[in-house]
């Protein structure tokens, strides 16, 4: 067992000790709740057209106004939370699972495997991230899940590199040597001893990456490479609202605001989490 060292006050209370992180947590919980209960909360069906006049302005019935097809924007923003968050989270899961597995494997294997693996990872990191994601979309084809997959794949080298270097420094530690000495299989050493020790680093990385991932997948949707109409994904909604910004600015203000608040909240939480879990970071 590799028990976590005593941390004094709990991680959670230290997490919430900073006003920024507290606000971030509250906003994030609100957005998660909005996504989870969107069908109950949304005043209208988010895909139903002709709920109001085309491009109708904000009113007590339609808080955020209406889009070109007379769909209620407030309902679409609520429904969009599901798609935007789902895309962001699945992206991080893909990068995390594959990147961490790859990183642990080559770091633990060491020797030639590690040298070749590290070289390949470094080479993959030479693709500017958005360019790599667009290249993958070009291969997979345009679409919501393909965009998430593309961003997820393009994040694998980043996770692999950090996991690898963390594994390298852990692999020579006593508890790993001891586990090997008593005859633990490689799989057991990785699963029972290395992964629990890597967990804090991986949690921090995944959280810090989530904000970027949500932003990134929305960007692809905005470019027309991700979610397609009529999906109420925030990036896709902004893309659809582009033509009418002049006459109906609300078509782009609210989806963008939702996206910004989500990413900002995730970043506030991620920043604080990295300060609390990673002693090398300067706690502010």
């Amino acid at each position, binding site marked *: 067992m590799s028990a976590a060292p005593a941390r004094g006050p709990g991680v959670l209370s230290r997490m919430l000790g900073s006003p920024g992180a507290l606000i971030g947590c509250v906003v994030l919980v609100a957005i998660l709740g909005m996504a989870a209960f969107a069908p109950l909360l949304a005043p209208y069906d988010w895909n139903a057209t002709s709920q109001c006049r085309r491009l109708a302005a904000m009113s007590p019935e339609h808080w955020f106004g209406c889009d070109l097809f007379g769909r209620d924007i407030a309902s679409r923003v609520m429904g969009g939370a599901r798609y935007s968050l789902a895309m962001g989270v699945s992206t991080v899961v893909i990068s995390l699972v594959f990147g961490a597995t790859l990183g642990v494997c080559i770091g633990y294997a060491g020797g030639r495997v590690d040298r070749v693996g590290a070289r390949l990872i*470094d*080479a993959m990191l030479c693709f500017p991230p958005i360019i790599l994601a*667009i290249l993958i979309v070009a291969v997979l*084809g345009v679409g919501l899940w393909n965009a998430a997959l593309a961003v997820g794949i393009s994040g694998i080298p980043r996770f692999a590199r950090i996991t690898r270097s963390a594994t390298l420094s852990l692999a020579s530690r006593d508890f790993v040597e001891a586990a090997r000495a008593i005859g633990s299989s490689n799989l057991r050493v990785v699963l029972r001893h290395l992964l629990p020790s890597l967990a804090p680093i991986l949690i921090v990385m995944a959280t810090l990456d989530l904000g970027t991932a949500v932003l990134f997948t929305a960007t692809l949707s905005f470019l027309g490479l991700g979610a397609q109409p009529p999906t109420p994904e925030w990036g896709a909604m902004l893309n659809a609202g582009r033509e009418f910004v002049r006459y109906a600015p609300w078509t*782009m203000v609210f989806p*963008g605001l939702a996206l910004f608040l989500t990413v900002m909240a995730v970043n506030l939480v991620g920043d604080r989490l990295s300060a609390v879990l990673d002693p090398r970071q300067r706690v502010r």
Partner: protein
Amino acid sequence: MKLQSILRRLLGVIPTLLITWTVVFGAMRLVPGDPVLLMLQGTPVSDEAMAAARVKLGVDRPIVVQYVGFLANAVRGDFGDSFRSRQPVTSLIAAEFPYTMQLAVGGLLIGVVLGVVLGVVAGVRSGGWIDTLCMTAALAGLSLPSFWIAMLLIQVFATELGWVPVLGTGLNALILPSISLGLFIAGGLARLTRNSIIDVMQQDYIRTAHAKGLPAFLVVAKHAMRNAMIPPLTFLGIQFAVLIGGAVVTETVFARPGIGRLLVQAVLEKDFPVVQGVVALTTAAYVLINVLIDIAYSIIDPRVQS
């Protein structure tokens, strides 16, 4: 001795480029569908014309021969012709490059000014409310969707106030795109600069400078800034390298010509030679700039050893 290590680093670019270009080549071969049909884009043609097109594209040859051919041409800067415009990919990219360059410089300029000011102020006043304010602003810069802020800027400053043109490629039309690009760069730069300044401010030579009675402003400007700027410079170098590949989003929102827009258009139109060429050249520029930054360091700062 020094020249040798510089040469070694430059040669180190070759295997990296080989791997990335192999990935690009492989990815383009994974695209489902017949490249000849994609090139003809539904135009009905005879079997002979199809066969001729196949030979012209070189897809009738074994994959290994195609691969070697791709590398040999790529090294000479030849990435084939666009499926759409039938022009050489390299000249298409060359035509867009100046616009991308202008935007990259504009964005970096705004990013540096904003980022350094925020970072230095936060670092010098670390721990207080000024620090929190500056760092929250920096985080906001990193969290703002650039396409959203771009649309807001257009709506406010171009449509409502009419201060700057929405479209065009003149200097005036460069202001809003540069701001929307610069905010993100400023966010990252401010955070790095702050941490770097805090580290430097704890050094002995800063205490000495204070002790000899130098005004606080001069201590920061003359002693702290110069030593604290190395990590932020790396970040800027990488950002510049990314921007060379085109500010995909900014170019699209502002309908500016540029390499990023060329790439997105090519993906949407399934113009694969253009996709291949843009990605291959962008990556090459990225790798090269990174190596040049490394080399520049070892020359500027003798403590950095290869």
